[in-house]
């Protein structure tokens, strides 16, 4: 049985991804903040075909608990074939500009905690397994409207790039997932246009990238082109435009 650990399992993208693995009969270990919601999701995955489910509640910013939670997951499943780190928040950029304390806390949630978790997970993985994290296209270039989130995701992307090189020789695939706009509760208040994708579509892309052992996945694929264009705008022009 394919064994999956998902951190941030109550996020819309994580839940949709978990459903794909449940339909394949996988075992799923779900970690998140809200035990009730985790339990509801675990029951759902069970009906959808998951071979086994287990849940554990913790806050990613409680760094001192990382090893315990990972120990529990490994103890439960013996070995884990896929770890998906999917937690995140959408910081209020203006509030982060007004408070360094808030800025650092958000940076911790969206960047540092993932780095800490990946560091603790890496030595536990065996050849053939995958470590995946949801970063964002927002990490490819800092924009005035959300650079706190973007810079935290940039840290994740760069960290994962290095980790991928390091673990490649051990047969462990490290995947950086870069979704564009996704229609989730996190982005409820946004006006939706043609570039917006559903969590289901992103989930299918994630599973496909994991199956194919890819290193970086822009989801949907067209974001690769969009980000190439945005990355190539010269800084002297970029600083003047609004994005």
């Amino acid at each position, binding site marked *: 049985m394919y064994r999956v650990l998902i951190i941030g399992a109550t996020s819309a993208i994580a839940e949709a991804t978990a459903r794909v693995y449940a339909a394949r009969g996988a075992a799923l270990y779900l970690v998140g903040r809200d035990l*009730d919601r985790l339990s*509801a999701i675990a*029951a*759902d995955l069970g*009906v959808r075909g998951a071979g086994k489910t287990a849940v554990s509640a913790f806050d990613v910013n409680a760094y001192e608990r990382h090893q315990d939670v990972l120990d529990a997951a490994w103890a439960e499943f013996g070995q884990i074939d896929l770890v998906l780190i999917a937690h995140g928040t959408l910081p209020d950029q203006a509030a982060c500009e007004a408070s360094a304390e808030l800025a650092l806390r958000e940076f911790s949630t969206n960047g540092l905690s993932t780095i800490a978790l990946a560091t603790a997970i890496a030595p536990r993985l065996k050849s053939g397994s995958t470590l995946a994290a949801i970063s964002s296209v927002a990490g490819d270039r800092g924009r005035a409207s959300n650079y706190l989130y973007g810079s935290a995701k940039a840290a994740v992307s760069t960290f994962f790039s290095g980790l991928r090189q390091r673990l490649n020789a051990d047969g462990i695939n490290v995947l950086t997932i870069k979704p564009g706009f996704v229609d989730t509760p996190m982005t409820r208040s946004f006006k939706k246009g043609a570039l917006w994708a559903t969590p289901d579509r992103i989930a299918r892309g994630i599973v496909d990238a994991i199956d194919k052992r890819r290193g970086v996945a822009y989801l949907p694929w067209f974001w690769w082109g969009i980000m190439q264009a945005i990355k190539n705008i010269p800084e002297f022009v970029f600083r003047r435009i609004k994005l």
Partner: protein
Amino acid sequence: MTRPGQSWGRYPQARQRIVPLTDRRQPLPQVDGSVLPYGNGRSYGDSCLNPDGTLLHLRGLDRFIAFDSASGVLRCEAGVTLADIIAIALPQGWFLPVTPGTRYVTVGGAIANDVHGKNHHGSGNFGHHLRCFELLRSDGSRQVCAPGEDLFAASVGGLGLTGAIVWAELQLRRVPGPWMEVESIRFGQLDDFFALSAQSAHSHEYTVAWIDCMARGRSLGRGHFLRADHAPGDAGRHVPASATPMAMPFTPPMSLVNRLSLRPLNALYYHRQRAPRRRDSVHYANYFYPLDGIGDWNRMYGPRGFFQHQCVLPPANARDGIAAMLGEISRDGGGSFLAVLKEFGEIPSLGLLSFPRPGTTLALDFPNGGPATFALLDRLDAIVAEAGGAVYPAKDARMSGRLFRSAYPQWPRFQAHIDPKFSSGFWRRVME
């Protein structure tokens, strides 16, 4: 993908705030003004709309809670679609006890309209297979309702007005596999339909007829009678490719369904089947949900949308009433792309406002051609009223309050159970 805030007929267009509920343990969101639950917008008119108010979008309540594959009892959140249920239950030998003609409706929507299918004569409505459901009311209370209770009778077929259904428990039915044994019989006139229907009610689980509503004179009411049963699962058979369903990619500037296209389409359909009788093995998806294969097909009616008119006429007046309606349509020449005829059985509905009742139901689609279409629909309503029949709220956008109130005489009893915070465009319209 239907955008919340629209109904399937795309008429009327309404402005409303959309507030999602995605966690079944959360309280009802606090909003100004009235709210109405919204499932997947597969109702045609304004019964799933709340103009200038709030729609409580419940599609995100899409988790299963428990499924016992030995007994077929399924508990799930109200935003789970019938398609989701089939996907998990059919491989384990279970199917929906009752299903409408699209699988993209939510469990909550199926309850709130107490939907029926082609097996009404044997299995009744969706509500007959409910064991219980939980209703979230605006006073913060949660009530688990079971058959026999007042709030259950008010909420089944209750048009979303008694509170938000957050989860439900239903009894699925055993099937041998995904295949259907379908017999199609061509018939030449309306009386043949009644004969075939009477004959097939005891022998076949599913019956329905398609009518060529452009035909006149002696061939008035000609069509195809389809009767079917679940067939033993046969692994050797080829499952139809549904991986890349077609879809209407955009809304054409005008309706593609019009006088010019309707007559040949209807005649073509009638003559498609050469032999008077044909037997086929058909995959359940093609049998139950032929239209689901074309995504967003409602767009083909253009930006002004379209109307469905579905009525039921009591047995004593059914023959003459249906003939009068078909005569009216054929005279009008506007036609209907689809005319579906079915006899309901005797099983009494459980809901105070449930649509199904003994008699014959006719369903018709009309592009919105402005005042002329409204006038035709009013003439059809007059025939329904005369016959002592009823129009289906799930398919309605314009019936008069007077027709509604006389066809649903239990409405005063129902009204006592309405949640004070809940309202809909439909309800305000028919209560004026």
